[in-house]
């Protein structure tokens, strides 16, 4: 697939779109826009940056935005990506905070939010499945991925412990 290097403005606008559409979390949108829509990175490059973003403290998509921005345009690129991912959601959030008390009790709002939240969870799950499928994981990689999912998703092990234990295993095994 042909890749396209973004300009600084592209970085800002792309991450602004990711932030604005990231209803329920930005991870599915970040992958969709960076890999599929704008083709700044291919699946494998994006996944490896996301892996680094995951083990550093902080939201992994924001960490990835910093690294992707730096990769294309250095300090200015990181700054553009960072401002992009936060500017629109902050404005929307202020808007919601201002009207929330007035609309929160409407039944239709609750129903819409509930349905949207259920679908947003599906977007996150589907994104993980799609990445695993496209990256053609071998048995060791599938085992590590499943171990991470079971420990954090089902057993509610704090992520920091899962990363501390599974990180070295994953690096050794994959």
């Amino acid at each position, binding site marked *: 697939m042909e890749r396209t290097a973004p300009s600084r403005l592209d970085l800002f606008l792309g991450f602004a779109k990711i932030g604005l559409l990231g209803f329920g979390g930005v991870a599915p949108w970040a992958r969709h826009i960076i890999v599929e829509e704008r083709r700044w990175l291919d699946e494998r490059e994006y996944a490896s940056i996301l892996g680094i973003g995951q083990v550093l403290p902080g939201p992994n998509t924001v960490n990835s935005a910093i690294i992707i921005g730096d990769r294309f345009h250095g300090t200015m690129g990181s700054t553009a990506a960072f401002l992009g991912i936060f500017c629109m959601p902050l404005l929307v*959030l202020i808007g919601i905070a201002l009207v929330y008390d007035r609309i929160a009790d409407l039944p239709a709002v609750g129903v819409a939010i509930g349905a949207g939240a259920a679908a947003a969870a599906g977007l996150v799950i589907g994104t993980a499945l799609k990445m695993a499928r496209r990256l053609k994981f071998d048995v060791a990689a599938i085992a590590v991925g499943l171990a991470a999912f079971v420990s954090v998703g089902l057993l509610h092990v704090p992520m920091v412990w899962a990363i501390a234990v599974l990180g070295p295993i994953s690096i050794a095994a994959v």
Partner: protein
Amino acid sequence: MSGLLEEIGATFGWLSLLQFGGTNAVVPEMHRQAVEVLHWMDGQTFANLFALAQLAPGPNVMIVSLIGWRVAGLAGLLVATFAMTVPPSLLAFAMSRLMKRAGTSKWLGIVKDGLVPLAIGMILASGWIMAASSNQGPLSIALTVAAAAFVAFTDYNLLWALGAAIALGLTVHRLVM
């Protein structure tokens, strides 16, 4: 007022570097600080702000923006957001520079490749946790499964899945009521 802003900045500044695996890792400690230690708000208010931050667009880290807003208005929102996002971002930037310097070294490639399945497993786990907390019955489960299949097997824009889910949810609600 300025004392309050310093309190917000200091609290989120050190919490920011403990966000291993994402913001949700520090939500319990954030709750303890905001409700029990600093008495910024009661537990119900915290829970409402958390739900709102999950549903609003943008990274989930913006729970702190809402807390800052609640405690000290616009200045509080800006200080809280800045304190929670800038320290880890600087760390990510330093890491980015380290990786650039290492170039195409073999060990870096091994570490990067090794972390990919871990990251994907974590994304799957967070989706699962979101699904569990938003589950209000068979319709919720169906919407989650349908949206997951939509993403996994097609390349269409994700907004279709969200829009269809909300329309379907509202339609079913209207038919049942």
